[in-house]
């Protein structure tokens, strides 16, 4: 049995300890906001927070996430997260939307540590998240908008 604490709730899962956290979250626990895009830590669609840090859940075995606080897009509930999500809505960032949970998880984690990111900081923190719809201009703008709102 693997115990996972996701969004404040503890789940007991009867799964292989090697199962990537992504699939435990999606297919076993049933939270589908976290997305699969590559499975190899290349695209960022599966980004969640583990003890507040943005991590790629597709390459994190459940055994490594035991005992840690896992937050998914459904569990976001901080001041920073609210600022980011409302900036995302205000600027109509999304297109197909499939990458956006991951984008937002990465952006929230960056802003929580670095409330006034430079363009370079944004490039570094966000270039692991692919958006095939190329909503990048608005992602940048929304991060800056959220940073302003939090200042």
């Amino acid at each position, binding site marked *: 049995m693997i115990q996972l604490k996701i969004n404040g709730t503890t789940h007991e899962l009867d799964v292989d300890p090697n199962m990537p956290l992504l699939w435990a979250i999606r*297919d076993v626990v049933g939270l589908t906001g976290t997305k699969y895009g590559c499975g190899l830590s*290349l695209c960022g669609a599966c980004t969640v927070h583990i003890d507040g840090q943005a991590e790629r859940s597709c390459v994190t075995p459940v055994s490594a996430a035991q005992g840690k606080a896992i937050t998914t*897009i459904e569990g976001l509930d901080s001041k920073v997260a609210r600022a980011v999500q409302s900036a*995302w809505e205000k600027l109509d960032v999304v297109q197909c939307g499939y990458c956006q949970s991951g984008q937002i998880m990465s952006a929230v984690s960056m802003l929580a540590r670095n409330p006034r990111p430079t363009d370079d900081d944004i490039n570094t923190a966000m270039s692991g998240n692919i958006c095939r719809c190329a909503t990048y201009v608005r992602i940048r703008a929304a991060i800056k908008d959220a940073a302003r709102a939090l200042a």
Partner: protein
Amino acid sequence: MDKTHLVDRSRREFLKVSAAAGGGLLISLYLPGCERAEKAAAPGAPIVFEPNAFVRIGTDNTVTVIAKHLEMGQGTYTGLATLVAEELDAAWPQVQVEGAPADAGRYSNLFWGPVQGTGGSTAMGNSFEQMRNAGALARQMLVNAAAGKWEVPADAITVRDGIVRHDASKREAGFGELVELAAQQPVPETVFVKEPDEFRLIGTHVPRKDGKEKTNGTAIFTQDVKLPGLLTAVVAHPPRFGATVKSFDAARAGKVKGVVDVVAIPTGVAVLDKDFWSAKQGRDALSVEWDEAKAFKLGSEEIMGEYKRLAAKPGAVARKDGDAEQALVKAARTVEAAYEFPYLAHAAMEPMNCVVKLDAGGCEIWNGEQFQTPDQAAVAAAVGLKPEQVKINMLYAGGSFGRRANPQSDYVLEAASIAKAIQGKAPVKLVWTREDDMRAGYYRPLYYHRLKAGLDQAGNPVAWQHRVVGQSILRGTAFEQAMVKQGVDETSVEGASNMPYAIPNLTVDLHSPEMGVPVQWWRSVGSTHTAFVVETFIDELAAAAGKDPVAFRRALLKDHPRHRGVMELAAEKAGWGKPLSEGRGRGIAVHESFNTYVAQVAEVSVHQDRSFSVDRVVIAVDCGVAVNPDIIRAQMEGGMGFGLSAALTSAITLKDGRVEQSNFHDYTVLRLDQMPSVVEVHIVSSAEPPTGVGEPGVPPIAPAVANALYAATGQRFYQLPLQLKT
């Protein structure tokens, strides 16, 4: 889809314009689903007002717009809802959107005849009048209901922001209060639609209808579908196109915990489990022996070599003006060039997937459904049902770029064949891994182009010969008859055969060799390569003539005011002609696709190490009436960014028939740090009918960047992705 063979039927079907009286246009209309308004509601059913197939209003004031087009990112749900809400005079927040079921009788794409589907940047164009009529009709029936209730003349009633009002008696009602009465009104044969100066939502910024769900993780994609007993299927596909299963050993796969079933299907071997990861473990443990007797075994280099040989001979004629051959002989100077383009994968963020439930009652599908009518027919034939027994739930698609409108219904059929192979004992969710998605084919074809042009003494182009070599996308599909004429697949030459520059002697011809690599349309289709060729070659001619690229184009675009309009606007906003510092360059490209005109000016910097960056892109677009200006901007930004992936970095290559790339480490795509830091979009104000914006932002960026790099370095580019010589 190419516009040239698709007939605009929207006007004929819906518009009979009468003299406008008291503002607006009086139209008589036919809208599918109208008959239902007068149908008695089933006892006990909630009271709703459903005046036609596109609008439903509940007693809670909610207006539901039924969207016949897929929302795959391009803003169709918002756009279609804007049209209905405009004419209905609904308040934007009370409007919600629901995907239409598969039913071509009610939800066909009016540009495609009796076919339901989304593509070719047609969603707005074919719906502009239909959705407005649907809203106007609903509004009129609400007004008639209020007039009856309040015993006042209908024309004394106004509607604004979802409130129906009679000013003189100070009475008002929300839509919800009028639903029951409205549903009993006879359906009017004519209604008024607004004149453009009466628009309140069209042309303004309304928030995207899918913005919230896609920001908080609640939006449901195919990947997210849950059903009781659902099994996930992961498939072992052959390593080469055209290979089939000879035999397989499921013993090791069966040992993976939870694996429920292993079945052979026409496209490979499927492993089913309750979750994706376990199914994938099972798939990876399978051993399959493939029959490669009919497999395709060439590599990209051999294919390109073959195309070069073919290009020595004339092909099927796509356009012939004057006598280019003769004119070249007489020309004062000639310029020649040849161009190479690789295969490209769509690589939508959501890898292909599809949910199929097969039972005695029929077949039900959940999918980011882009091609309802062809998919219904294909699945029905495969599982032995009638097309109307195949029910399709259209979900959000996590991108498509054309991939989900597959003329062979490839992944949809694969899902159906798995459900059939397990005799429908459980609903099946087919999930492709990224690797499956990248290697499954249906690429933008590999192309070779050869050009020769002649200039006269004064530097005016007098001859242009353009030969295109590449696989036909449409041959062998249901679209061949309509869209392949005299051996010319329009999708191979669009953007070349209709190039706008006034050159008196011009030929465009085409070879469409057969190759065993599955190919398909890829966002902006033919223009993905033709725009690069035409716009870099014309730049080269400008340089040969010693003229400024904008001035050179301007002179040749006399008869194309909309091309000229966007070019002038982009050039002006970009500061064309203003000097740039050493190592920087500016380039322009202008291109029409899907009846939308786009010009882009790119500014690049070439760094010490010969790497380069695209710093700024100024875009001008003319897409007729700008229904949702912010969505137009978003599509221009995103389309440009999508095109920039192909310009800078993406390529699918084959070696001995095997696809060399598998995931985003070797099929690289644009990332945030490569996106130009400044992207400006300028929309030409226009009263022309609206045209699409999903694709036309893509084609100009690669040539604009190549031309900018030329300005910075003097190097010309004959291949994508672009490579700067060191």
